[in-house]
């Protein structure tokens, strides 16, 4: 009888264990193995500790189950000085031989993940916690993959037999069960934007869009999206995108349907001679704000309620050098910020090149934003 009791207890424990494991496992399309990731251009976290990796070289999006799911409500402050030198040393090289391509914060654990490219072409995924940098092992993991190439036909080659096609991922975000990917082609100068339902299924359903915006009411401008986020404006979901020449453009998400050409509404012109680098949406009290990092301008803040109020579309060219137009925005006292992500609801983690040339990873509370 005692033996039977133990047997039943063990069985029940096993069932509970399996049930609890399944509850947290990503559903559908995942397999165990080593993903063939050839490059890491962009990172974004999805649900349940799933990290999306945008791989330009293989024109794919990988969903990786990081198993990093222990929930931390309030993230500890991040402050790592000379992060590039520290990473380079751990990779056996110097800072001049690496580029930090992207950073992403796991919304559950609040741990920072960084994609690093070595000058010899190798890509590495790292996690950063406190002062500790750890490589993320991508061997024998649970993952799922989505191929972006529409046509699996053989690519054209040059005289030396090298493939010519490039489809570089410029940004990647996850929202409401969908992975959104903006990309640049080395062929046509236009933006391809893809909305991919997640979990990925064998029967792929994706919307491929060409989206453009009207510049100053006269010229229709096809141009690649550099970075984007999504937001609720007046109860409607929008894609908030920034192009390579810094206008801020809104697209209603429900209009982004496969095979359509969608024209966006230009709501801000944030100055010439600049390329947007990263956009995030942050909460400040009850208010949602957009934070944008730039190549040649300080970090900018736009209140979503101002975007909601701004009903117009820019109709006149900005004629004064370096001037701006459209929705109100505030420049923040942060320059040379290369990467941004939301650390938690009130903090932002920044990768910033300091005046003395140091590259620091640090977090800032909402009083700065």
């Amino acid at each position, binding site marked *: 009888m005692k033996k039977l009791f133990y047997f039943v207890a063990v069985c029940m424990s096993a069932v509970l264990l399996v049930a609890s494991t399944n509850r947290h496992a990503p559903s559908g399309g995942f397999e165990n193995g080593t993903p063939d990731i050839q490059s890491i251009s962009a990172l974004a976290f999805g649900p349940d500790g799933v990290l999306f990796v945008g791989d330009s*070289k293989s024109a794919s999006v990988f969903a990786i189950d990081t198993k990093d799911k222990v929930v931390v409500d309030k993230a500890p402050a991040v402050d790592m000085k000379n992060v590039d030198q520290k990473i380079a040393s751990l990779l056996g090289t110097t800072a001049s031989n690496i580029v930090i*391509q992207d950073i992403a914060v796991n919304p559950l654990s609040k741990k920072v993940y960084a994609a690093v490219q070595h000058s*010899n072409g190798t890509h590495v995924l790292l996690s950063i916690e406190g002062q500790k940098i750890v490589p993320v092992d991508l061997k024998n993991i649970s993952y799922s993959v989505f191929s972006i190439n529409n046509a699996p036909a053989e690519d054209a080659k040059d005289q030396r037999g090298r493939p010519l096609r*490039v489809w570089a991922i410029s940004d990647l975000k996850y929202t409401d069960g969908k992975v959104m990917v903006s990309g640049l082609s080395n062929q046509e100068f236009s933006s391809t934007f893809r909305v991919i339902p997640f979990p990925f299924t064998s029967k792929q359903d994706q919307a491929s869009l060409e989206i453009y915006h009207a510049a100053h009411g006269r*010229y229709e401008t096809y141009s690649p999206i550099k970075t984007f986020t999504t937001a609720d404006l007046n109860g409607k979901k929008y894609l908030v995108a920034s192009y390579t020449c810094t206008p801020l453009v809104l697209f209603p998400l429900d209009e982004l349907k496969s095979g359509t050409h969608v024209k966006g509404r230009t709501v801000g012109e944030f100055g010439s001679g600049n390329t947007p680098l990263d956009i995030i949406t942050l909460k400040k009290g009850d208010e949602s704000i957009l934070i944008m990092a730039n*190549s040649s301008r300080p970090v900018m803040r736009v209140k979503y309620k101002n975007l909601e109020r701004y009903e117009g579309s820019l109709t006149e060219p900005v004629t004064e050098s370096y001037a701006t137009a459209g929705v109100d925005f505030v420049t923040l006292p942060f320059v040379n910020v290369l990467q941004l992500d939301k650390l938690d609801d009130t903090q932002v983690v920044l990768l910033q090149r300091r005046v003395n040339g140091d590259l620091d990873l640090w977090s800032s509370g909402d009083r700065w934003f």
Partner: protein
Amino acid sequence: MVLVWFRLRDSVVLLLMFFLIIWGCAGRSNKKVALSVLWENDRAVGLEIPRANFPDMPDDSVSQLLSIHLLQGEESAVFGDFSIHEDIIIYRPIVPFTRGFMYGLQEKGRLVSSIAIPLGSRVDAPTVNRVYPSQDTLPYNLLKFYIHFSKPMREGKSLHYVTLLKDGKDTVHSVFLDLQPELWNKDGSILTLWLDPGRIKRHLQPSQRLGEPLKKGHSYRLFVSSGWQDKSGNSLVRDFTKDFYVSVRDSLSPDPNGWIFNVPEAGTTQPLVISLNEPLDFILLKEAIRVADLNGNILSGMVELRNEESTYIFTPEVAWLKGIYELQIESRLEDLSGNNLNRPFDRDISTVKALTEKDVYVREFSTQ
């Protein structure tokens, strides 16, 4: 005499100290560990360490007691794995070692050996093979260059090495679009470099402020510096230059109806030669044009571009049959200024008529 004694004593002391230091160093390293580099595809992917140098070290302690460090200042242990293969310990870093750097093997934190990863042979040094467009007269709203290298190059810092000089003296600033990630082909040997589109597009702020990146009637030199290294750490053999002259703006879409076909004879595998009337985009010419029979079957064959990308030559694998064929041209085919078959690069909606929106344009030709 006393002086000689003191000198003798000092010499003996110095000699003793010298031997002590040598002995101390030898005691520290204790063994001559002959490291050797493990190469794969011209990359230093690991180190081989003789197991015999660590006879007392249990197998399961190797990764705790040994570590590899970059020999430069106070460096952390390099990320990597140790594994034991009979009489060899193999260390594989997660990223191949960097050529030209020295690495040290530490046992319990003490340096016991070191090794230099050699620079690559200059024989293998990369070169710039070609730059497209090939023409030496280019429109002032030119959109992009393709730079073809002989080897995969270091990515991410292209604009450190590529510059544009105007009239042989002035560097043209902010002329290229600074994109991250950069646009490289899969193996990293072809770079696409956009001229800042904000400066090409009319009425956008950069073009108002800075003007178009290229000025009509001026000479330019595209300069690729030999400081640029390939992925193995080898620098370009020499600087590369491409000189060109800038002519008028091209605001018109390419028109396949004006192309002149030189149709081959049926029963031969002679090439179909098409004169395009203007140079078109190198990559899109190869990607966006197909030859099909009337049943829609795409013909296999070889594509060649001549006359500075203004002549398209298709040689089929199988002889032409007598009859009608189709040349299918995707609308995304562009000229050098980004004007495609459906629309010009920037469209003035107040003056231009409605766009034709076709995915594929077709020209038929018949073989006799």
